[in-house]
């Protein structure tokens, strides 16, 4: 099918974009890479009167890494993040989440802001940003605000983003993740490269001393995708491994916490029971990888 008619707008600056949104509000959709919206429109599930294409707003692309903060522009593509070596050194979970999204053609066009705003429960970045406790920066014509990723996702594909607002960037505080003592992982089960994963687990661990015989975990982060209507932060799994050297008991306890917290919707290819089990198993695998990386 072809989409219903719409007016196409192509602003070149953030100011121009938010002015358009102030005017159009509910009648407009932002196009941030067009790896989902075009399909939904072609099926006429969505028929916005206006499309605001962010592709020419250069100020939204790119990333920076400084001593305190990592900053990702909303229109940075998965492909760019996948190959960002400076990011991989300090927040490995982000490029690892990016490189596992669909296939190369999608990664060339799809963007971090598009994925976050879409808020698919199976999306990679939402879970990664919840694990990393990232902040999302939102701008409208008359306001700017910062919303923690942990508060942004409200319900199934439903976020705190207002119709007149634009996600401009994502920031991650580096303080909890000194690279020499930190390991991160984003592990997912995917039945085919092009699809959304069945379950994903983003984890990070910081150890006291990577050269010790049995390095102890000072702080852990665990978040899962696609086992609830929104990205699932699992504090009990974090507590379970903090203070441990990731022995089997600690891993079992973390996996049990993830299993307990999971409340997935069944899908055609994966029933509820299977997804609950996967929540535990992928928490286990992801933590193990993160710990190995922290202690190498």
């Amino acid at each position: 099918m072809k989409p219903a008619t719409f007016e196409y707008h192509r602003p070149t600056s953030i100011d121009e974009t938010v002015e358009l949104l102030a005017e159009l509000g509910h009648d407009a959709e932002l196009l941030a890479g067009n790896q989902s919206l075009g399909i939904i429109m072609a099926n006429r599930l969505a028929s916005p009167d206006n499309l605001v294409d962010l592709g020419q707003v250069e100020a939204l692309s790119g990333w920076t890494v400084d001593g305190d903060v990592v900053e990702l522009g909303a229109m940075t593509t998965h492909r760019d993040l996948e190959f960002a070596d400076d990011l991989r050194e300090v927040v490995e979970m982000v490029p690892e989440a990016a490189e596992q999204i669909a296939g190369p053609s999608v990664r060339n066009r799809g963007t971090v802001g598009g994925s976050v705003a879409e808020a698919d429960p199976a999306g990679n970045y939402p879970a990664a940003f919840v694990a990393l406790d990232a902040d999302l920066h939102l701008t409208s014509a008359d306001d700017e605000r910062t919303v923690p990723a942990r508060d942004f996702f409200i319900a199934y594909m439903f976020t705190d983003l207002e119709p007149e607002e634009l996600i401009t960037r994502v920031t991650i505080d580096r303080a909890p993740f000194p690279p020499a003592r930190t390991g991160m992982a984003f592990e997912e089960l995917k039945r085919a490269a092009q699809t959304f994963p069945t379950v994903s687990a983003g984890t990070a661990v910081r150890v006291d001393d990577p050269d010790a015989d049995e390095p102890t975990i000072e702080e852990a982060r665990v978040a899962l995708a696609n086992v609830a209507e929104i990205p699932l932060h699992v504090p009990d799994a974090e507590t379970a491994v903090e203070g441990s050297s990731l022995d089997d008991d600690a891993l079992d306890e973390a996996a049990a916490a993830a299993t307990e917290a999971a409340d997935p919707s069944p899908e055609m290819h994966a029933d509820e029971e299977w997804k609950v089990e996967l929540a535990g198993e992928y928490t286990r695998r992801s933590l193990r990888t993160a710990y190995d990386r922290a202690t190498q």
Partner: protein
Amino acid sequence: MIEFSGDFESDHPPEQLWNYFTDPEILAQCAPGCDHIEQESASELAATVAVGVGSVKPTFDVDMVVVEADRPTRLVMDAGGDASRNSFETVAEMHLVETADGTTADWHAEVAVSGLIASLGQRALGSVAERLVTDFFEDVEALADEGVPADSQIRAKPDAKAALDD
């Protein structure tokens, strides 16, 4: 058919809250996605409500009939909405119970949806609906906190009965 329910704690007594829940102007301000509400008779309201789940954002023309209004405890509404390729019908009831600190509002809705939104499934709709209802109660509570005056204008329709078509 989908059932939703929940409750909300208010710091205000039922007698005061009642005025807010039965004032069309207050409802128009607080109902999520509501453009405007027109009162067509003592017990009938017409509204335009836009609700979005992801990029699916139907705008419904909603007709509501108040079928029971027992001040200040029980309000039952029968509503139907039509949008392009979507429609819904609902019977929603709310119970206001006086507590030591104010009121507990227990709400319950039975909804039949058809069209595109139906394909989202009960879980997805439920999580969004709960959020919208909570927003509504929080907005009403905020107006009551501010002391914005409310004027009860809605009465039950005589002899009306709420029922969903199967």
